[in-house]
């Protein structure tokens, strides 16, 4: 590889990393439930990714690579800190009050609280596929498990979120499509 093309590779690496940061950070916030912790996690991920950039194969999925680093970092910190991070019902919920202004509506706060009550394996699965934009196969690779495992975790996560939140969505999103039909039928019971 020539010097020039190496410089180009470096530029592309930095550009692609920058482009992935908002998504990566949203993943970190969703995973940890805390902005401060999420930003520290993102910072650690940037440092790690930078140090390992020679291991990154240009042209492969930068986003998936960064998410994998962040996820590994999260679980490694979780193991080090013990229950401080691993207790979604206690600490996560208590920390909720720290940044309420960061979520415009009560609805988002409710959803955040509900998300934090999920076991982390279910939480990461539903986030990666439902929000971060990964295919089941990519999510399985990031989490180091089978595609079927990802699907069943997502399924359990959805059921649990429905349980926690009730089925209040149709009120918040307006009576459209299936939601309206469900509401009507509910009243007919």
């Amino acid at each position, binding site marked *: 590889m020539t010097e020039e093309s190496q410089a180009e590779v470096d530029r592309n690496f*930095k550009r692609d*990393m*920058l482009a992935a*940061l*908002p*998504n990566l*950070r*949203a993943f970190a*916030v*969703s995973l940890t439930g805390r902005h401060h912790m999420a*930003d520290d996690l*993102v*910072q650690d991920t*940037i*440092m790690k990714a*930078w*140090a390992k950039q020679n291991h990154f194969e240009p042209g492969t999925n930068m986003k998936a690579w960064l998410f994998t680093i962040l996820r590994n970092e999260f679980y490694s910190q979780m193991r080090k800190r013990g229950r401080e991070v691993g207790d979604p019902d206690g600490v996560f919920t208590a920390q909720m009050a720290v940044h309420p202004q*960061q*979520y*415009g509506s009560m*609805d*988002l706060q409710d*959803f*955040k609280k509900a*998300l934090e009550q999920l076991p982390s394996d279910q939480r990461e699965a*539903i*986030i990666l*596929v*439902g*929000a*971060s934009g990964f295919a089941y196969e990519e999510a399985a690779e990031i989490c180091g498990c089978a595609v079927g495992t990802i*699907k069943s975790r*997502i*399924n359990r996560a*959805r*059921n649990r*979120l*429905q*349980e926690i*939140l*009730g*089925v*209040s*969505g*149709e*009120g*918040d*999103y307006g009576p459209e*499509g*299936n*939601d309206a*039909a*469900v*509401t009507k*039928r*509910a*009243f007919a*019971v």
Partner: protein
Amino acid sequence: MTYAPFYWQVVHKAQKSMNNHRDMSGRQDGANAPDGLHHTISARLRQFYNSVQEEGIPDRFLQLLEKLDEAEKRASGEGGHVQASVRDQA
């Protein structure tokens, strides 16, 4: 938006039982179910996620990337020292 608690109880209870009923109907892949309930959860998840994404990239990360870039240029060849010095500065 507020509703009488009774409204919620009725809707919640009825839909929960409908949900159970649907699960017993032998549907295999709930994750792909196009039904309204799952759609709502998905929509709320994306709304929450997007609200964080739209906060953009905090300055500290842009500064960090710049420092890493500079440090790398300055200290090419020193390898591992680059990261340590950047972290100390940050």
